[in-house]
């Protein structure tokens, strides 16, 4: 299903939440949000809390209705169409599993409501679909349990299965992994990524976790203060963010001021290659921690902090007269704190904004 938001804004008791002048910046005026979800792709919306990302999801679900603008499903304006008449599935942050029903009854719920009775499904079909969906999420052994008898990860899978069973044309995920602990989140994230890729359903996934966003997104949208700051392929946004907010939100970032000296552009890491396009105003050079390499011919830097984290060594470098730089060096290669080393930008790395 092709889904689009056209110039949509939403306000909660007169306070703009999405679109409009939600950030009180004064420069966005009454402009709403416009966004297309590509058919069969996973669009991830990432933003800090209060950025309006959950509001965006609820507008698509029909749990909220926009103040201005249109929400279109395959071209049809859905404003005023209640949730139960929209072909959507929602996975809630709290899972919202029905506590008085078994896992089987939870998954079957969407196959037995008014919406699906109209399609004339037989009880045998419902059973088959429940079994199919349970198999997809490895829930066969848990079908007769109550939600309270399940672990967090199992509850999460039931929530996904329940949303999936009616095969909605649009799947909405509202921070579905935020209640899981870090270790479990990694495995569930990977499973979910495989599942979404295999389904081919149009998906909107809301999160504040950048790793989740980079792993799951076909298309990444960064939201801040009710406005879309930047959108595109996830790695593009990580490598070439439009502004310091996107740069720091999607990962750790060193932002170095750039000064003009004669015809050349200079940073604390040295002169920039002439091939880089330097924007007007007060440009900043984005250096990701993994973009820094040890180079005896590079800029001299003192090691202020040094700690091996396993996959990489985390090092804080102090440049004379310059800012501190965060660097991720290959594991086991970082010198102790107090040492002096030469540091340089990896060839091809760095982005000006």
């Amino acid at each position, binding site marked *: 299903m092709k889904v689009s938001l056209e110039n949509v804004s939403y306000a909660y008791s007169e306070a703009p939440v999405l679109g409009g002048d939600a950030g009180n910046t004064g420069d966005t005026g009454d402009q709403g949000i416009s966004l297309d979800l590509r058919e069969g792709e996973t669009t991830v919306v990432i933003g800090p809390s209060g950025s309006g990302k959950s509001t965006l999801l609820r507008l698509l679900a029909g749990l909220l209705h926009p103040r201005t603008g249109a929400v279109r499903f395959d071209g049809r304006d859905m404003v005023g169409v209640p949730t*139960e008449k929209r072909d959507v599935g929602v996975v809630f942050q709290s899972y*919202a599993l029905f506590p*008085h*029903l078994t896992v089987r009854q939870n998954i079957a*719920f*969407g196959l037995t409501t*008014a919406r699906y009775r109209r399609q004339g499904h037989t009880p045998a079909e419902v059973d088959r679909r429940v079994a199919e969906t349970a198999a997809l999420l490895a829930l066969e052994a848990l079908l007769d349990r109550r939600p309270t008898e399940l672990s967090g990860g199992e509850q999460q899978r039931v929530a996904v299965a329940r949303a999936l069973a*009616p095969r909605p044309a649009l799947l909405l995920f509202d921070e579905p992994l935020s209640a899981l602990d870090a270790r479990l989140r990694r495995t569930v994230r990977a499973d979910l990524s495989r599942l979404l890729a295999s389904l081919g359903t149009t998906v909107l996934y809301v999160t504040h976790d950048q790793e989740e966003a980079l792993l799951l997104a076909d298309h990444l949208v960064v939201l801040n203060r009710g406005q879309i700051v930047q959108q595109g392929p996830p790695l593009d946004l990580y490598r070439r963010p439009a502004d310091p907010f996107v740069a720091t939100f999607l990962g750790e970032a060193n932002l170095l001021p750039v000064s003009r000296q004669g015809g050349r552009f200079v940073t604390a890491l040295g002169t920039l290659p002439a091939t880089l396009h330097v924007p007007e105003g007060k440009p900043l050079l984005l250096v990701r921690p993994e973009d820094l390499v040890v180079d005896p011919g590079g800029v001299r830097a003192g090691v202020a902090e040094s700690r091996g984290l396993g996959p990489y060594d985390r090092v804080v470098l102090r440049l004379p007269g310059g800012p501190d730089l965060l660097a991720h060096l290959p594991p086991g290669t970082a010198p102790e704190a107090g040492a002096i080393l030469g540091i340089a930008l990896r060839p091809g790395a760095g982005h000006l904004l």
Partner: protein
Amino acid sequence: MRIPPRRIARQTGIAWTAATALALVAPILITIWGAFSHSEFYGQRSEGAPVQGTADLFRYVLGIWGEALLHSAALVAAVVPLALLLGAPAAYAFRRRPFPGARWLESAALAPLALPGIALAVALIETAGGAPRFLLLVAGHLAYTVPLVLKTVGNALSGFDPALESAAKALGAPPVETTRRIVLPLLVPSLVLAALLVFAVSWGEFNVSFLLATPLLQTFPAALYSTYTTNSFPVAAAATIVFLLPVVPALLAIQALGGEEFHRGLPA
């Protein structure tokens, strides 16, 4: 030997609880003792026949106050469903569809609990004195019982995630189906508890019932008053036991509903 202060605190607590329980139960125990342990002769019937023996005592009590018992039963039968029908939807509106001033209004709805029965009774007669007396009794009892429903059902609603209702809608259930399949089953424990509380309060309510009573329409607690003032203590005590009989199962049921299984909601 020094006794650790924590142990003293614990034992004081136990003693306190026991004393409270005793203070609550003692009047009932005295009443039961009063009904069963007195002499063979309890009094004289108006037509002259003496009341003799425990069985005859209860027969006598039912004979004079049987009609009042029926009035009380009819009143409770009307008040329990009406209190639920008025209170439960209102509790839902307060907790799920908050409007400006909802919190204030919800607190204000508890005020009748503190209203003296005489004030309520006079207010009812002033505003609707011409209405059938039974309806006035029902109205008076609702004023004392709807707040209980508001509170019990309201607390139950606060105890479950509003996202459950959003989830049901997203799965294709219109509001009526969501209420029938999700909200009501989850509220059953609180509705049963509310019904039992309403029953207990309405069955024992004296003030309003006494003030609104007519010679032809007396509830049992109101009738009990004249029993205590005119008959001997054993007769009144026996009447009290008759009155308490339906309350005991209700109280036991309220106690039993503390179970966790029940509070998770009923299976579909």
